[in-house]
């Protein structure tokens, strides 16, 4: 899950961030250099890949938070 998400983040960043950087980072995705548009692309890709709804409440700005959100059954839509 972490590796898949890191790959999606790298893809959404348009080559600005590598998957390895995401996996090593101890800061937010914004601090890593993910732009607003990159963030929109990322959440779109997560929803398409995992079939869930993700809302922008400011709580999903790290890899760990995203992994946590996707691991919770409540995160899945019916």
């Amino acid at each position: 899950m972490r590796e898949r998400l890191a790959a999606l983040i790298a893809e959404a960043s348009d080559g600005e961030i590598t998957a390895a950087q995401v996996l090593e980072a101890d800061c937010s995705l914004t601090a890593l250099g993910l732009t607003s548009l990159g963030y929109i692309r990322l959440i779109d890709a997560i929803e398409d890949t995992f079939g869930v709804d993700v809302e922008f409440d400011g709580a999903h700005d790290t890899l760990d938070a995203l992994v946590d959100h996707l691991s919770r059954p409540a995160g899945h839509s019916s």
Partner: protein
Amino acid sequence: MTSPVTVEFTGARSGDGPLTWGQRAIWRLTEWLPPGDPYFNMPWVLPVHGKPGLPAVLAALARLLARHDSLRTTWIPGHLAGDPAGLVQRVAGQGGLTVELIDAAGTRPRILAGEIAAELAAKGFDYAGELPLRCAVVMDGGRPRALAFAFTHMAVDGRALDVIAGEWPRLLSGEPLPPAAPQPLDLAEEERSPAGTARCERAMRYWRAALERMPRPLFATPPGTPEEPRFVKLGMESAALGAAVTGLAARWEVSTSSVLLGAYASLLSRLTGRGTVALQLIVGNRHDPRLAPMVATLVQDGIFVLDVAPGQPLADVVRAAHRGVLAAYRHARYDPAAQRALIEETGAPPTAYFNDVRAAAGWPNLPRHPAPGRIFPVGAWPEVDAEVFCTVGPATHTCRLDLLADTALLPRESIEATLGEVETLLVAEEST
């Protein structure tokens, strides 16, 4: 004027298909207008650089039409299986575009092209019987100097014109361009696939939650007596505001658009007497890198809802607005029929709009010593389909902000005061 020439074009494919969501959104708007009304036509000028000859320019036009299905499309009444829309997009494999050649005769070619583009756009398109663009070439000294266009909004939006301008040098030189994919027929198919249906359903879940929590009507207080004409638009140009917004966007790590939206929402909350502000946004839908290079109409309405508490620090309002606007952007691709059905159930949103038309972020040409703003009248109309409409203009040397309002809700002096307050609020915040 000399006699017109015909640009023959041949595309890679032809065919019929259902409309894209973007085409449906524009079609729905045109349905409100009398037949032949040119309101949604887009005049456009493309300057011709590098002194190419007329044959090279006409060949570039042929390549442009060959490359983009949207520019060879007509919209024909009819039904396809499983699609109740009553309209079909038909892509022609080949055809001819009639192009007038006009001699500048001593006038400045680009200015003349602007006037001709406005003339070309002044007449409504025959969607079923006419190509979706009209074109004239302005000649000077025997060479083409500028192209005047009118497009129907069914075929292009503002960003699509940026795409054409970006491709133009290579269309002219004949250098290869990356393949143009997807095309609108592909997009319409994707939108009807299970993934497209799921995307629309997600967007409608977001819209439903937004529609259910927004207060109505827009103003808690009853309307007053309007002036004549009733709808008034004032504009402000302020380099000082541009500089302040640039500084705050960097400080708060948000876009300049979100800073303006947050400040405007905060003021609107006070003016309307509502703790929750709902705004409709005009969304370009180009953040998906696959769609960004499309020559097509992708623009649709987004919906934005924000809670504003009295006395809440502006930084918090702006950060919340930034998250809110990203959510609104992400849910602005949907089937307009599904949205219309939802609105019939929940009630329509108030007609408060915010539109940032800038192509680039920020204001790259601000002066070194930015001056404070001046406010001026832009226009007045007896009828407009908006209670309040705030626009961030395309200027790059100053922040241009227009505010249109129904004077029954917001009298002229309040429109002026609100524009001034956006400036004073953000300039003061930036200097703290």
